[in-house]
């Protein structure tokens, strides 16, 4: 089975639920280094995506394009805008497709990563959400099924968080706290890890998060 809009819709519902549950944890992580709003940012953004979920259609590119528009309207935070960028890249890359093969996921995410770097003026190693995306995208190279993708990306999250924890943040608000960031997880990395945790759960369980 490959990825279709049906799976993506379920994923969005899960993401909305996950960010709601993780709001406090992410705010706290951001409060230690930044302005304490990563959780709120993510909860609002995925809440909006979920609430304004586009009508069903099997056009993946169109689906991402709609999501990109919702993002562009709903968020102004750095991390939120990077999510917007990711939606835009996905929309462009999957234009005309009704499925994404699992094996295509890694190259797609690497493209997203590059666009994010260009937009955010960030480099790999700056300890941002982009490093997490890089870890996950790299781990997914040649992965060809959902179960494997779930396992690999979860593993990548843990590894990447561990790898960066004791480094300094070099971008965003956290940059100014430099030394204080050592020993702390980057809130953007944590946010992506929460999302992946949620998305890589048992896909048979339909998240009932529309409330």
């Amino acid at each position, binding site marked *: 089975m490959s990825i279709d809009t049906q799976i993506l819709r379920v994923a969005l519902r899960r993401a909305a639920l996950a960010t709601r549950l993780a709001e406090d944890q992410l705010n706290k992580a951001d409060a230690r280094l930044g*302005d*304490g*709003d990563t959780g*709120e*940012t993510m909860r*609002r953004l995925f809440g909006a995506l979920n609430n304004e979920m586009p009508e069903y259609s099997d056009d993946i590119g169109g689906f991402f394009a709609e999501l990109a*528009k919702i*993002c*562009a*309207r*709903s*968020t*102004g*935070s*750095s991390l*939120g*805008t*990077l999510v*917007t*960028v990711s939606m835009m890249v996905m929309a462009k890359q999957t234009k005309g497709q009704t499925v994404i093969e699992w094996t295509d996921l890694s190259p797609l995410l690497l493209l997203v990563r590059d666009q994010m770097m260009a*937009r*955010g*003026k960030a480099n790999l190693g700056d300890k941002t959400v982009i490093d997490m995306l890089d870890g996950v995208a790299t781990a997914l190279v040649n992965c060809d099924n959902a179960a494997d993708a779930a396992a690999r990306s979860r593993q990548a999250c843990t590894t990447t968080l561990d790898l960066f924890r004791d480094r300094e943040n070099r*971008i*965003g*608000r956290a940059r*100014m*706290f430099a030394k204080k960031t050592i020993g702390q997880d980057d809130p953007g990395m944590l946010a992506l890890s929460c999302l992946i945790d949620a998305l890589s759960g048992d896909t048979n369980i339909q998240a009932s998060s529309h409330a």
Partner: protein
Amino acid sequence: MDKIINTADNYVNEMLDGLLAWDKRLARDDRAVFLRRSSRPNKVGIVSGGGSGHFPLFVGYTAPGLIDACAVGDVFAGPSVDSCMRAIKSADQGQGILLLYGNYGGDKMNFDLASEMLEMDGIRCKTLLGTDDIASAGPQEADKRRGVAGLVLLYKIAGALADEGADLDHVHAVTAAAADHCRTIGVALSSCTLPGRDAPSFDLAAGEIEMGMGIHGEPGIWRDKLKSADALADEMVDRLLADPVAQPTNRVALMLNTLGATPVEELLIMYRRISVLLEQRGITIAVPMIGPFTSSMDMGGVSLTLMYLDDAREAALRAPSDCRYWNLGS
């Protein structure tokens, strides 16, 4: 401190509703606020934007003679890409747009994205970033500095030039030179609290202040015991004057701003000293502004902005305008 709100999530939209109910000159396209009638036909559009929580910055300066449109973000967050696009479109009269906002990563990403998308529609944008906060980076890295209260002076200059019919390149050039000659330093006395949170954004004990702290609580230069008004004035003036500019002059615009909870009376106590200090150095305060121009909600503290004036800048600052928050008085 407690807040008079309905829900935190509605803070910005309801604030904008109130603003528009009050100021009938304004219209709104979602999170973009703009002037219904341009102050003149075929002018360069001046567009700004930024997070909420700094009123009257940014949206309060949407007024004849200052900015034409403003993209309004959530509290202390950048404006969305969509609101940037709407603001730009609403200010477009075919003569190009000056994007004039503070140098913050998120804001820049969003305005860049927005203007690139609109370039395809033939709208030409030039960007100028406010970078007046000298505490946020050294003079060698002046382009990394954040924009704070000095932006208000830039609005006025860009707005005046656009109203005179200058083209985009000229508006940009004069305003850029003004930005190069504008410096701000702030000091925080107490934290603000974001809507919906029960704890202040950062800790600053009673009796403790932070010199150079940013308007969102970004770390400053030092944190220590509260000093006297005169000692603070001395240090802030010294720091501002020590920061190099290309062409210092002996006439300045001065903006002494409260961040929120600090009363204007305390600004006046500081101004008493500041006016003497500048006089001693042979500097004339040609345009003195004292009051609430750029806030951080209920944060305690002040910022001091100096802009070295040449004739063009001074004339632009004195040009007619009609904004409640721009009032030179006499």
